[in-house]
């Protein structure tokens, strides 16, 4: 049983985004989700630096450095897109107008607390950016991350030890092993990587999990059956 590749994880998230929904993909791994969105999904991507209906990155040599995403990478504008200033952009975010924000995370707690901006390392300057506004404002906050740290430590925890981004906001976690919903009675496993048992997943998860009905099966390519 091999954990999902980055591509497969991105594909799995992409396939779950609501049709015609307004979605912000956080910087880092979440941005990669855009590459796996089916064209017929109708998903409209927002980037907090002031653009709605983000299109794919332009061909090499065609970059316009006045047309970038929140990760400061060149993008394009889809037909029907628009530009606006940061105050309107963050009004969209904080005001609950986005259907889903997909964010990376260092840790997520069983209560949906999110820690994704700092590991508390005081050696380098901290940066918060717009992730915190997304975490507070979008209708649904999804996290995508590796299930454990490089050292094998769980990232889904009873209580975050890293500085929080926001409390009680995450509703769904996509990892390279599973899809977990954070619901009233705890962490509910909706889908499991093919060949992985709930018991094995529990071993790398620092908070009790339970199955939501019969969990669906995640294939190696990120599709869920």
């Amino acid at each position, binding site marked *: 049983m091999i954990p999902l590749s980055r591509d497969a994880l991105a594909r799995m998230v992409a396939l779950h985004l609501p049709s*015609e929904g*307004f979605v912000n993909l956080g910087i880092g791994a979440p941005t990669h989700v855009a590459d796996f969105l089916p064209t017929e999904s*109708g998903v*409209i991507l*927002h980037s907090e630096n002031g653009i*709605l*209906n983000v299109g794919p990155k332009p061909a090499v040599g065609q970059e316009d450095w006045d047309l970038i995403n929140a990760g400061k990478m060149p993008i394009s*504008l889809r*037909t*029907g*897109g*628009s*530009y*606006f200033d940061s*105050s*309107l952009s*963050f*009004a*969209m*975010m*904080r*005001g*609950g*107008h*986005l259907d889903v924000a997909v964010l990376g995370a260092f840790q997520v707690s069983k209560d949906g607390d999110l820690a994704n901006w700092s590991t508390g390392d005081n050696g380098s300057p901290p940066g918060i950016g717009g992730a915190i506004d997304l975490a*507070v*404002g979008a209708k649904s906050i999804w996290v995508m991350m590796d299930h454990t740290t490089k050292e094998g430590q769980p990232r889904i925890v009873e209580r975050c030890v890293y500085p929080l981004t926001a409390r009680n906001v995450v509703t769904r976690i996509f990892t390279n092993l599973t899809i977990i919903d954070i619901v009233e009675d705890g962490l509910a496993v909706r889908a499991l990587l093919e060949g992985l048992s709930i018991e094995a997943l529990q071993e790398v998860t620092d908070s009790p999990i339970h199955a939501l009905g019969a969990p669906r099966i995640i294939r190696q390519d990120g599709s869920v059956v």
Partner: protein
Amino acid sequence: MRNVVVKDAGAAVEGIQDGNAVMMGGFGGAGLPLGVVRAVLDTGVRNLTLISNNAGSTEDDLSLWFEAKIVRKIVCSYPRAAKQFAEQYRAGTVELELVPQGTLVERIRAGGAGLGGFLSPVGVGTVFADGKQKIVVGDREFILELPLRADYSFVKGHLADTLGNVTYNKTARNHCAVMATAGRTVAVEVDRVVEPGELDPEAIVTPCIFVDRVFARSPR
């Protein structure tokens, strides 16, 4: 692809219910979605809370709502020169919350932008401060003003594309652009519906994320 075009004003107001809070764009007649005014009347809803800069003149406008007595309360900056409203007001059958115009639009903006309120210098030392929390910052006193949201926001745009991106015409933009951010359902009456790509992305005032329904005004 997303398409928020509905066939007429009736479809634009679908779902409105007794007791709803409704924002109506416009400053005078400019920006007032006139088709919506009539369509709401036709639904027979009552006890509305109306959030609007004005309360109608004696014309074919929001005065119709007061004549039909479907407004329980109005949140408004300038209800003068509104004959039907004035009659209801004097009879005590409609409640008025008078709000300075800039405070009104800023409260609506706060609602749409997810803020819990703002500190305003406007009204300090006047009756507009009555009953409101005072907050001192540095050596200056401010009034805490609270956000406004509504069940429905109805505004008048100039052009909209089928995705729901909207432009406005001249001073008809007024409160419309902000109200379009603060309704749970936002419907825009426009002069014309166009295809995606026909509006300049730099000149779209209300991006489609805020808009749920669009319809073209019928020729009068």
